[in-house]
């Protein structure tokens, strides 16, 4: 019964399904149509975005898949404007690292319209963007940065951890009436997973308990969910039974599920690929430490990348990215901890 497809295909399928279902859904981004709009001499639909995620959509929806010049402020802003006018644009901000040239349209415009305008605006825009290290793409193409978006009231932030999640969360994102930042980990695009063919939604703000356990709670985000699962297998061998929670969305955040778990396990490890300062990991840690203080048997451990840019050299990048071993060590620190 299983139908295995990749994270990339799951995203592509979510887009295709929603475009079929709702003519107001449009897709735009650099090379998203793939040179076709350019009337260039080559094959139509040549690229489908730099890593091929939108490939094939142009063929089916030639009027609703748009290439853009390299003008992120203009086209992300256009997506935002179009969302106020009855469309449901899905704009691709190729690498999340490029937010610096268009952040204003996201955080001062899209995120604030509804509040500033006294509740009279609806801005159903989705910004798909690639994040994360692992491709040897160095400091300007490997960042995580979802903490920056999570900070901003008015934005919803999604970090799918596998193909199934990616599809259901993207369909929800497209149908959602608020601006959504949809963060795709580029090292997951080839990850295979069992994904139903039809449309389904995964609601925002509902964490997924990936693994049940009683000794320690591990909250992990995006690609780190797989790492946490590996760590849990290893820990199981040493008699430590870890519960793994994937929040799925960093904003809204399902604090309830996390706190309920920590109240049972008494221990928490939060795993986040981002830099540590003002990270989602520390955010979750602080919330839990405030709300479940009485239940904590050990200090919350936070596993993140170091406070450095992402290095290029593969040997350094591998050291930079939080590892399964880092998670195992953090769990051990928590379980071994004595007052």
């Amino acid at each position, binding site marked *: 019964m299983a139908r295995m497809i990749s994270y990339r295909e799951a995203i592509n399928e979510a887009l295709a399904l929603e475009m079929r279902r709702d003519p107001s859904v449009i897709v735009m981004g650099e090379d998203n149509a793939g040179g076709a709009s350019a009337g260039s001499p080559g094959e139509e639909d040549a690229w489908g975005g730099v890593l091929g995620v939108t490939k094939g959509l142009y063929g089916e929806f030639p009027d609703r898949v748009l290439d853009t010049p390299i003008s992120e402020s*203009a086209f*992300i*802003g*256009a997506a935002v404007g179009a969302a*106020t006018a009855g469309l449901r644009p899905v704009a691709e901000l190729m690498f999340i690292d490029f937010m610096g040239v268009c952040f204003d349209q996201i955080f001062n415009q899209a995120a604030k319209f509804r509040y*500033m305008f*006294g509740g*009279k605006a609806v801005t159903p825009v989705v910004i798909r963007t690639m994040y994360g290290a692992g491709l040897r793409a160095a400091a300007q193409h490997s960042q995580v940065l979802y903490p920056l978006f999570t900070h901003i009231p*008015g934005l919803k932030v999604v970090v799918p951890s596998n193909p199934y999640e990616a599809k259901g969360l993207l369909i929800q994102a497209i149908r959602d009436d608020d601006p959504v930042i949809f963060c795709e980990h580029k090292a997951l695009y080839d990850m295979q997973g069992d994904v139903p063919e039809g449309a389904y939604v995964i609601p925002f703000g509902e964490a997924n308990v990936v693994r049940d356990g009683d000794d320690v709670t591990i909250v992990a985000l995006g690609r780190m969910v797989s790492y946490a699962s590996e760590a849990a297998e290893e820990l199981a061998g040493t008699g430590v039974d870890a519960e793994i929670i994937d929040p799925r969305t960093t904003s809204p955040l399902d604090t309830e599920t996390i706190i309920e778990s920590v109240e049972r396990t008494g221990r928490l490890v939060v795993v986040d690929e981002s830099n540590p300062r003002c990270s989602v990991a520390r955010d979750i840690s602080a919330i839990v430490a405030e709300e479940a203080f009485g239940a904590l048997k050990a200090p919350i451990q936070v596993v993140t990348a170091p406070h450095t840019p992402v290095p290029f050299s593969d040997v350094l990048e591998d050291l930079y990215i939080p590892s399964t071993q880092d998670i195992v060590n953090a769990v051990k620190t928590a379980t071994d901890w004595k007052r």
Partner: protein
Amino acid sequence: MTATATVRTQEGLSADKLRDAYRMMRTIREFEERLHTEFATGEIPGFVHLYAGEEASATGVCTHLDERDTIASTHRGHGHCIAKGVDVKGMMAEIYGKATGTCHGKGGSMHIADLAKGMLGANGIVGGGPPLICGTALAAKIQGTGGVSVAFFGDGASNQGTTLEAMNLASVWNLPAIFVAENNGYAESTASTWSVAADDIADRASGFGMPGVIVDGFDFFAVHEAAGEAIARARAGGGPTLIEVKFTRYFGHFEGDQQTYRADEVARAREELDCLKRFRARVTETGELSADDLDAIDAEIGQLVEESVVEAKAAPLPTEADLLTDVYINY
């Protein structure tokens, strides 16, 4: 190098349309003059940027627009709001921070918006609007509504990358979009003759594949004609236009500005160039409207603005519950 010549005014507006145009300009002027007075009392919170002197731009453009069309504005947005039909009393209440305001008191002068009227917001970010109207224009194009979208922005904003990118995108996508550069000579205290490296802002049009037009911003008819041409072309699928409107703002950058950076160009403008005076002279000379017609409008608007202030002052403030609503759809 000047991209294109000034467009000469022509005519052909019905008496009703002329009355509407005059009413629009007069409403803006009255609204802004009154705010200037009220601001001095200290009762109005925050930053207030007045549009007085520039009425012919918002009016000359927006008299061509209808409910299919969208505009995006700037920090100096009252005139554009009024011209696009936003309720004057709601605006005044908004500027006073009242619950009855257009944005429930949560936006203020710099963020008045009314999407139901196609007014996508004043904007606190210089250059914030042009990308947005590429989106509303795209929506109109995809939905086939025949709608056009207009971004108003200042001379200062014409140097902002977001504005420049948006012009290129509008051409590349062949959008029904109009870019109205309101060149009032200054961005805060910085002269446009210094900050805009071209002779005219309109010179930038050709670099983004669109016609560039310069108009006398004190002349309603000049703006109206240039905008009419551009909007008709855009509606017909002919793509975007950049219109540079030149004039002087009558007050400081914001209320409180001592304006030591400029010599008194305002007195002369008010005396000799003023758009309302010129409009009155022209339509009474040609006999298109009578002085009585215009006086009646003046009185009507005086009354409206007076009421808007009285009502705004008496209106209730937002309450604590309002702080946490409208962040998202569901709360």
